[in-house]
């Protein structure tokens, strides 16, 4: 797939104003599916999490999962939406092999939540209000695997295999209103918005929100309006961008691609586009057409959802604090400078850092590891940092350092092993015998050995040239494969010099 011609980003912004819109799908972490009592869990053997409902067998009927409704209302409230006094399900009719009934049960004209807004803070400190048009409940589709052909993609495949385990997993689709005024920050805003939604659903505890597993999926609408014009441009919808990094990159890419086409006198086709992580480009998908006649009608098998005011009050009272407020609180609690906090923002890892602190690490250590080594490894692997390690693992690592069991250097080594799946940090330390040697006897033995090779060092120290100890420390560390606590070695050397 060749990359399209792209206009320089700054130049694109000079000529055009980007207009954005997002549809974020959140898979809810209920025990069972939206309309059937099959387990809702990731990674099971194909077609084991299915009931007659999931397979759309003749005669089967859907029944709404109460927990999914509660989760959806909580999410609506967290997005400052009005909860509809009565909302209903509708059938969206289209044929596709991953859709067992060949209609998706969704919500159409009566969604559960409408008219919300969410505050998003950009890394540069700018706070942006994003208006939410609606959030509605629906069911996920099954999973297709395309076999044959060269790419494993749909084009050129010989046949496809269908697993209905995911069919019927509860989803909430959050739809924003048109977002104007993001200007230069459009790509960062896109990422910050999705990160904020992720923070919200994680704080609510209603989704695993793992983008790489598709728990959280973003469709990004991008259009460009020529400067000085009040006419909206034609939009494209980039589908299923499955990492925070990609959201930002995909929006930037679409702005640059569309700008170039428009500048060359071309027109934008209203179409679905697909983001390709590997090439960092989008490709054309299905054009929107008359064929998109979904023939929505009220789902006769399901009754309206009419939440009581008591239920809404109960769920409202249980809401976690808003992301922007939480950031302010955490920043103050952690005593971070603006710069330090920006570090975390840039990485989109606030939730991970907070979870790491909650798991026992110091705020500084949590920040340092996530935005430092973990982020570096994630970048190298082209994945989101939170896919590599859990906050609990990072906290354990930090605690091991605090306890003096690991040095920073050893800790980095342990981290790589943890990422490689060799176990928790403590398990890796044990398995690989990586712990710092804190036994003074062993250290003194090593120091003696080093001193015998450099007999004049002690004399120099006594003369006041304390930095001479460095050479011995280096030798000791080398001799012990880095497992010595450098600070303790230094102390011991200085003691030796003053004692004689």
């Amino acid at each position, binding site marked *: 797939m060749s990359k399209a011609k792209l206009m320089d980003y700054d130049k694109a912004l000079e000529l055009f104003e980007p207009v954005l819109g997002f549809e974020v799908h959140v898979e809810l972490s*209920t025990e*069972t599916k939206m309309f059937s009592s099959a387990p809702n869990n990731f990674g099971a053997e194909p077609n084991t999490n299915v009931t007659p409902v999931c397979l759309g067998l003749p005669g089967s009927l859907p*029944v709404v999962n109460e927990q999914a409704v509660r989760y959806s209302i909580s999410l609506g409230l967290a997005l400052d939406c009005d909860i509809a006094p009565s909302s209903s399900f509708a059938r969206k009719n289209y044929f596709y092999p991953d859709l067992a009934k060949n209609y998706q049960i969704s919500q159409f004209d009566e969604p559960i939540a409408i008219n919300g807004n969410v505050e998003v803070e950009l890394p540069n400190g700018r706070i942006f209000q994003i208006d939410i048009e609606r959030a509605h409940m629906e069911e996920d589709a099954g999973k297709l695997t395309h076999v044959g052909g060269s790419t494993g993609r749909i084009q050129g495949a010989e046949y496809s295999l269908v697993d209905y385990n995911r069919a019927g997993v509860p989803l909430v689709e959050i739809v924003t209103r048109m977002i104007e005024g993001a200007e230069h920050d459009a790509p960062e805003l896109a990422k910050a918005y999705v990160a904020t939604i992720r923070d919200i659903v994680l704080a609510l505890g209603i989704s695993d929100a793992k983008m790489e597993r598709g728990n959280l999926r973003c469709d990004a609408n991008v259009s460009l309006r020529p400067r000085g014009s009040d006419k909206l441009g034609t939009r494209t919808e980039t589908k299923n961008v499955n990492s925070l990094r990609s959201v930002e990159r995909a929006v930037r890419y679409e702005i640059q691609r569309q700008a170039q086409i428009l500048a060359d006198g071309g027109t934008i086709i209203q179409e679905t586009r697909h983001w390709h992580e590997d090439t960092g480009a989008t490709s054309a998908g299905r054009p929107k057409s008359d064929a998109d006649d979904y023939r929505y009608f009220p789902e006769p098998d399901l009754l*309206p959802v009419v939440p009581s005011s008591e239920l809404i009050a109960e769920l409202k009272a249980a809401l976690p604090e808003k992301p922007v407020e939480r950031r302010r609180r955490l920043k103050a609690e952690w005593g971070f400078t603006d710069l330090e906090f920006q570090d975390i923002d840039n990485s989109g890892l606030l939730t991970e850092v907070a979870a790491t602190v909650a798991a026992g690490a110091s705020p500084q250590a949590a920040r340092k590891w996530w935005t430092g080594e973990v982020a570096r490894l994630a970048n190298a692997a082209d994945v989101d940092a939170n896919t590599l390690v859990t906050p609990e693992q990072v906290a354990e690592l930090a605690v091991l350092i605090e306890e003096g069991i690991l040095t920073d250097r050893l800790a980095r080594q342990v981290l790589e092993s943890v990422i490689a799946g060799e176990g928790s940090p403590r398990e890796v330390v044990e398995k690989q015998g990586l712990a710092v040697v804190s036994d003074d006897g062993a250290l003194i033995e090593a120091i003696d050995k080093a001193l015998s090779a450099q007999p004049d060092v002690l004399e120099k120290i006594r003369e006041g040239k304390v930095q001479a100890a460095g050479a011995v420390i280096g030798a000791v560390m080398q001799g012990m494969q880095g497992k010595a606590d450098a600070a303790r070695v230094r102390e011991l050397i200085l003691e030796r010099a003053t004692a004689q």
Partner: protein
Amino acid sequence: MSDISEESVRHLAGLARIALTDAEVTALTAELSQIVDVVAQVTSAVDADTPATSHPIPLSNVYREDVVTDDVLTPEQALASAPEHDGSRFKVSAILGEEQ
């Protein structure tokens, strides 16, 4: 008079995924025109203020507890009637259109 044409019948058949023969299209065009002329009387029978009824018996908030039940099928049961499968998944020929 209805606006049913052979072209619209073909379009509807496409939406409904039925590969109608030409003879069927011709016959259905005539039949549907006739039927639609009759059923179209509903439009004049009601006005904007009349509420729609989608469920004969009004109920609301009918829910299921979020627990797994014995309705779950074994993979053997799930695949037993599949026209084609690979042992764990349903098999279909190549897909032309993209996901929606």
